[in-house]
């Protein structure tokens, strides 16, 4: 891949057995969680919109492996279940939000595109494509302002790169030398439109050049490559005189855009071809090559453990109550007694 080398020769340790297991476990959780979400969606338990992350797990898990939710910040688009889980939010609370339950991360009032977690610096999913990018700039600015040393990672799809907000944001982040990693999850499609049909320049990593933002292409199917690239970018932008970085992670969504998408705009062969680079297999191959092959028994135990976790999330969501009608009036203003709140039932 024509990646541009980072100016920093940051040393990233090779994985040991423990880490490989941890990465695999996390990716498997995302995968099985989303498969379950897709299943219950078709049963009508989840309503509205539901965009699955299946195929892109290496990105969320790689980001998490390189950063620290206690110190760093996450701003996301709407394909956000995977990042919430990777960043450590309990599957019960993510699933409950999909179900629209009171125990969900936004108390059931948001649904699929609104996975926030203040305890882990997750500033949420965002349903307006591109709208989240400037927010990351503001968070990064606040880091400098408060002399904190967090790095903000901002996720978006390749379709968002054609939106003005992306370019406005990169300019500001570069101008002010902010600790911001702009991470494009390029899965080649924005809904039914392939990147070649929407973008004059399809090498997303080059599209920060107008603002002199260094770009780098990363294999988004390889969790180790993701972990390394994000770690390098973080090391580059974190210091006070550091600069923002644009990472393009090439990936693929194995399912349709949303649960409602029959995905008629791409061929079965193309999808099958991409599935050969399933991020779970890519990691397994890495492990094998490094002589860390995971014994069959270990993998089976992992599967069982993850299946149990997902099942528990489903059951908890199923049994949780819907928000009370009273909840409509909560969180509009800071105080429910504020006269700006016009209550009318």
């Amino acid at each position, binding site marked *: 891949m024509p990646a541009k080398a980072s100016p920093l020769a940051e040393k990233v340790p090779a994985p040991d057995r423990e880490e490989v297991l941890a990465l695999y476990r996390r990716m498997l959780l995302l995968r099985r969680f989303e498969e379950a979400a897709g299943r219950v969606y078709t049963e009508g338990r989840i*309503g*509205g*919109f539901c965009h699955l992350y299946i195929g892109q797990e290496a990105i969320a898990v790689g980001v998490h492996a390189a950063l620290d939710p206690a110190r760093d910040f996450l701003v996301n688009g709407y394909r956000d279940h995977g990042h919430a889980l990777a960043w450590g939010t309990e599957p019960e609370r993510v699933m409950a939000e999909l179900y*629209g*339950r009171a125990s969900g991360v936004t108390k*059931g*009032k*948001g*649904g*699929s*595109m*609104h996975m926030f977690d203040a305890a882990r610096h997750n500033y949420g999913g965002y*349903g*307006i*494509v*591109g*709208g989240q990018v400037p927010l990351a700039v503001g968070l990064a600015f606040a880091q400098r302002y408060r002399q904190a040393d967090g790095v903000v990672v901002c996720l978006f799809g390749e*379709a*968002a790169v*054609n*939106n*003005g*907000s992306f370019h406005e944001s990169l300019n500001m982040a570069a101008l002010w030398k902010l600790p911001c990693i702009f991470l494009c999850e390029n899965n080649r499609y*924005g*809904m*039914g*439109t392939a990147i070649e*049909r*929407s*973008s004059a320049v399809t090498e997303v990593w080059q599209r920060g050049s107008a603002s002199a933002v260094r770009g780098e292409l990363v294999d988004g199917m390889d969790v180790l490559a993701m972990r390394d690239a994000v770690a390098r970018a973080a090391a580059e932008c974190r210091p006070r005189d550091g600069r923002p970085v644009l990472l393009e992670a090439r990936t693929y969504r194995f399912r349709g855009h949303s649960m409602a998408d029959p995905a*008629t*705009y791409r061929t079965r062969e193309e999808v099958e071809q991409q599935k050969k680079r399933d991020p779970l297999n890519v990691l397994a191959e890495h492990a094998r090559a490094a002589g860390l092959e995971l014994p069959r028994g270990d993998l089976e135990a992992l599967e069982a453990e993850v299946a149990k976790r997902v099942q528990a999330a489903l059951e908890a969501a199923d049994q949780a109550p*819907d*928000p009370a*009608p009273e*909840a*409509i*009036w909560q969180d*509009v203003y800071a105080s429910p007694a504020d006269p700006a*709140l*016009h*209550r*009318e039932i």
Partner: protein
Amino acid sequence: MPVLNVIQAVNDALRTEMRRDPSVVVMGEDVGRFGGVFRATQGLHDEFGADRVIDTPLAEGGIVGTAVGMALYGLRPVPEIQFADFIFPAMDQIVNEVAKYRYRSGGQYACPMVIRSPYGGGIRGGHYHSQSPEAHFVHTPGLKVVVPSNPYDAKGLLISAIRDPDPVLFFEPKRVYRAAKGEVPEGEYEIPLGQAKVTREGGQVTVLAWGAMWHEADQAVREAAEAGVDCELLDLRSLQPLDVEAIERSVKKTGRAVIVHEAPRTCGFGAELSALIQERCFLSLEAPITRVTGFDTPFPYTLEAEYLPRAPRILRAIREVAAF
């Protein structure tokens, strides 16, 4: 006569106008090869080609701004904003350019176009796939705002909107996109903008509604009739221009008015209607003008059924107003 749903009627109107007038072009996210996320532009790409059914990047401000330039040079663009909730990134272009071009250029230029967009709740879309932003645009002089409730009106109004010399926001009720079916004539016909339709005559309470809410209001007035309250129901169809004479005529007859809309209450279009009614019908009023609306909160995912003004809530208001 063929029976169509609202999407098919919209599609039919677009096709009819594109066949008639080569300056009509359709543009938007996935409107071409894919046929639109709601299938409103299905088949147009095949019939008219990629030059006239234009797949755009995800860039609402750019889509509308580009349409302005096209319109200035005599094309008749019909940009689609995939959901009304995504119209806000294009707000600057619509409010500051589209609406003001004629005025700003001293009448030398104009940018007639029709911005189509599905609006409203009822599909569990939550915050960003449910909003009803019509009032923002009625509040912007220079624009027209049309909201059909059924297939027949959707086709006739869309044809009129495309032929109109001024820019039109055309909000389509996505909740009843497929559910509302009806006979739609083949070929071209126009329904003039600014004519309300009295869909039920009655003497006791005037009910005003548009778009998806007309269906809830219709159910409520039927139930009201069973309960002995005789309502007159108006489908406004066009909010700007507004058929204020039809409203005045009806309220002077009934002395009572209930206004229904999904958008939040405060500064919703109901507030304007209420003001107009009291200005024009003050001496005829027998009861306070009553609004049944979405609440003054963001649009919730789970509590959508509570949020939307459904028939029982409308019926309650009708009864209260009738008994006042």
